[in-house]
């Protein structure tokens, strides 16, 4: 068995915000009828969390459920538990119309933290990230400069940001440039 590594391999940058590779993380795409009791029970059983409301993220200890679209969720879990969680989901949803796929190695996962985190992300995404408009627990899929990205904000003010693995370097360098000292705009105080 080969040794799995993340595309950024632990990269870290400290500037106006701290940008760091969040490490190997299990990510599972689940498509199906999100309003059905079977899907709700399967997700509850697999990661111990409910189905989030529209454009919301629910997180637990090392796990999260993200609302991707009206018929799609992304489940975050420890990297080593992916196979077991997929088996649990497939067992629980047997006979239903659904799709479960392991996308852990197709994505890269970053943390953007620190006082300048909101501004660092807001410079790159066409989204209002002011404290009034974007609150912890909200999840947003959007565009980060030239690539698609998705992120949610936790209670500590850290952005958990996901994008495709193939653009990991591009995404990290974008965030790094956005967080370079001297580049502060101060729009969020």
């Amino acid at each position: 068995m080969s040794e799995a590594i993340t595309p950024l391999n632990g990269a870290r940058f400290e500037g106006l915000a701290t940008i760091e590779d969040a490490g190997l993380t299990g990510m599972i795409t689940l498509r199906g009828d999100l309003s059905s009791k079977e899907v709700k029970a399967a997700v509850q059983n697999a990661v111990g969390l409910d189905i989030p409301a529209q454009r919301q993220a629910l997180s637990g200890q090392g796990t999260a459920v993200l609302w991707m679209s009206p018929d799609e969720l992304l489940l975050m879990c420890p990297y080593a538990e992916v196979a077991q969680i997929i088996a649990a989901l497939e067992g629980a949803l047997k006979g239903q119309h659904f799709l479960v796929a392991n996308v852990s190695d197709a994505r890269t996962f970053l943390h953007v933290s620190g006082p300048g985190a909101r501004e660092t992300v807001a410079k790159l995404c066409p989204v209002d990230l002011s404290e009034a408009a974007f609150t912890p627990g909200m999840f947003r899929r959007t565009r980060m400069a030239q690539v698609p990205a998705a992120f949610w904000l936790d209670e500590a003010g850290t952005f958990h940001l996901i994008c495709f693995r193939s653009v990991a370097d591009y995404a990290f360098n974008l965030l790094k440039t956005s967080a370079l000292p001297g580049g502060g705009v101060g729009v969020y105080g």
Partner: protein
Amino acid sequence: MLILTCPCCGVTGEETEFHQGGEAHLKRHGPGASDDEFHTYMFAKENPKGVHFERWRHNNGCGKWFHAARDTVTLEVYGTYPAQTLEPPQDIRDAITAKRPGWTWRDFA
């Protein structure tokens, strides 16, 4: 710049988060259609100055298709509505009539 609201995920975003997908409410003519019907379906598109109906996709977001009614002159978006409709809903038509009385677009008014 257009500001669109995706009816599928509720995001209000600017146009670079979306992608335009051509004219709305086309009736497809495929195998078995006459040459005239296919020609019209394929090539005869509206290019209005004013009210226009288009298909859009939230490609940097939830990925879903939807319809938008907008004005090609003022770039105002009158409203967006689900892709699974054959004609614009009444509230969208009313919103257009309020701004552009007497508008027509293909068979709609």
